[in-house]
């Protein structure tokens, strides 16, 4: 039953992708991209990747769409139709697709328990996580500790994007640009405002739940950061940019980003000082298992802070920018 559903979802995915290419209205394309991400998240869920599905839904379908829309508001809404250059693109793409489909015939079939990926590293993780960390979510264990260095890198990717957007949009907009504070926000619309005010606390609460429940269920710092950020973004959409910046000022956001990144790195350095390797949380406490738990809790907090602050900074950088007249 679920397989038929998966086939259906995958077909929808292809159709959505084709529709995105064909539409000339960028606004429509962005909304379709959001749907595409949501379908992708559903597919991930069917394939047992709950954490990834949550992230794709929060980041791909949520935050990405908002950033796209705020960028579209600053540029143009329609694309020009150009037909030149289609043929070489088609050739490149056809070669690529053939190559990949050629490669698939030797791939292990879906769900094959004897596939190499299920034989080598994964059993070790599944076997040792309960013993070494004593919590159920193996994804969090791999993310936070076994491959914690990747996650550190990931935090710094987000950090790079944040300072990059601030740096690139830090240039004064061209003369004649003006920012109309009334144009943003749905202040005059009673219904969205009332519902939004009702929901925002629960969104933030849910974000905190996801943050601190990551060891036990799907979730963790990234998802939590994205969820909390989306709560604040909703506030900004309802009450206007200025109100959102009053509630959570830019300096606080920068503090979150810098603090989160430094918290993560600081935990790693502390491990060196206590005689372990970088990010070896076992040395944090006398009991290695609680050391691991404490370490993962701290770094997940760092990740959540950094991601939330960075996504909000990026959003504000776009949304508060005056429009070229």
């Amino acid at each position: 039953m679920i397989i038929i559903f998966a086939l259906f979802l995958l077909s929808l995915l292809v159709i959505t992708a084709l529709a995105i290419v064909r539409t000339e209205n960028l606004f429509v394309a962005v909304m379709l991209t959001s749907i595409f991400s949501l379908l992708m998240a559903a597919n991930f869920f069917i394939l047992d990747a709950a954490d990834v599905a949550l992230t794709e839904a929060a980041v791909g379908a949520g935050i990405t769409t908002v950033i796209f829309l705020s960028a579209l508001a600053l540029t143009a809404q329609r694309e020009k139709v150009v037909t030149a250059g289609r043929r070489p693109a088609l050739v490149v793409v056809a070669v690529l697709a053939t190559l990949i489909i050629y490669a698939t015939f030797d791939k292990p079939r879906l769900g094959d328990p004897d596939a190499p990926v299920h034989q080598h590293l994964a059993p070790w993780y599944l076997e040792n996580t309960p013993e070494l960390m004593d919590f159920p979510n193996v994804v969090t264990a791999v993310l936070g500790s076994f491959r914690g260095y990747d996650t550190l890198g990931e935090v710094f990717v987000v950090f790079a994007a944040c300072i990059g957007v601030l740096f690139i949009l830090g240039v004064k907009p061209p003369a004649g640009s003006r920012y109309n504070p009334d144009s943003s926000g749905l202040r005059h619309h009673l219904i969205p405002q009332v519902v939004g005010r009702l929901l925002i606390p629960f969104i933030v609460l849910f974000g905190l739940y996801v943050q601190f429940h990551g060891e036990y269920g799907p979730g963790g710092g990234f998802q939590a950061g994205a969820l909390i950020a989306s709560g604040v973004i909703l506030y900004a959409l309802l009450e206007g940019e200025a109100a959102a910046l009053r509630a959570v000022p830019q300096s606080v956001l920068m503090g979150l980003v810098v603090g989160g990144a430094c918290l993560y790195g600081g935990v790693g350095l502390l491990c060196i000082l206590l005689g372990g390797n970088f990010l070896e949380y076992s040395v944090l406490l006398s009991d290695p298992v609680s050391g691991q738990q404490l370490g993962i809790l701290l770094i997940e907090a760092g990740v959540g802070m950094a991601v939330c602050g960075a996504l909000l900074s990026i959003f504000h950088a776009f949304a508060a920018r005056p429009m070229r007249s």
Partner: protein
Amino acid sequence: MNLLELLGYFNYWVFAIVLSVGLYTVIAKVNLVKKLIGLSIFQSAVFLMYITMDKVEGGTAPIIQKGVENQVFSNPLPQVLILTAIVVGVSTLALGLAIVVRIYEAYGTIEEDEILDAD
């Protein structure tokens, strides 16, 4: 060929098709925002490939419940990798959009051919 096997191939084919659609958009379209949308589809396709290989027949998400015996779990590692890759993708996208906004401010257009003509 049972249904799961078909789905296995179907997943990879969808991966190949979506990947091609994304790359085609990046190469053939001249609108910069459209190129970025294509780029994000292109990356999503790769996520699908990774997540496809993590599935184990009869498995569940890798969250180990205590006291339940003989559970089969899907592979946690590709999931971790793709969590990272999703965040990387969104970061690239944000940066790209910031550049597009600046290009529009400097040139008054986001069509690649018109920008090339302007210089």
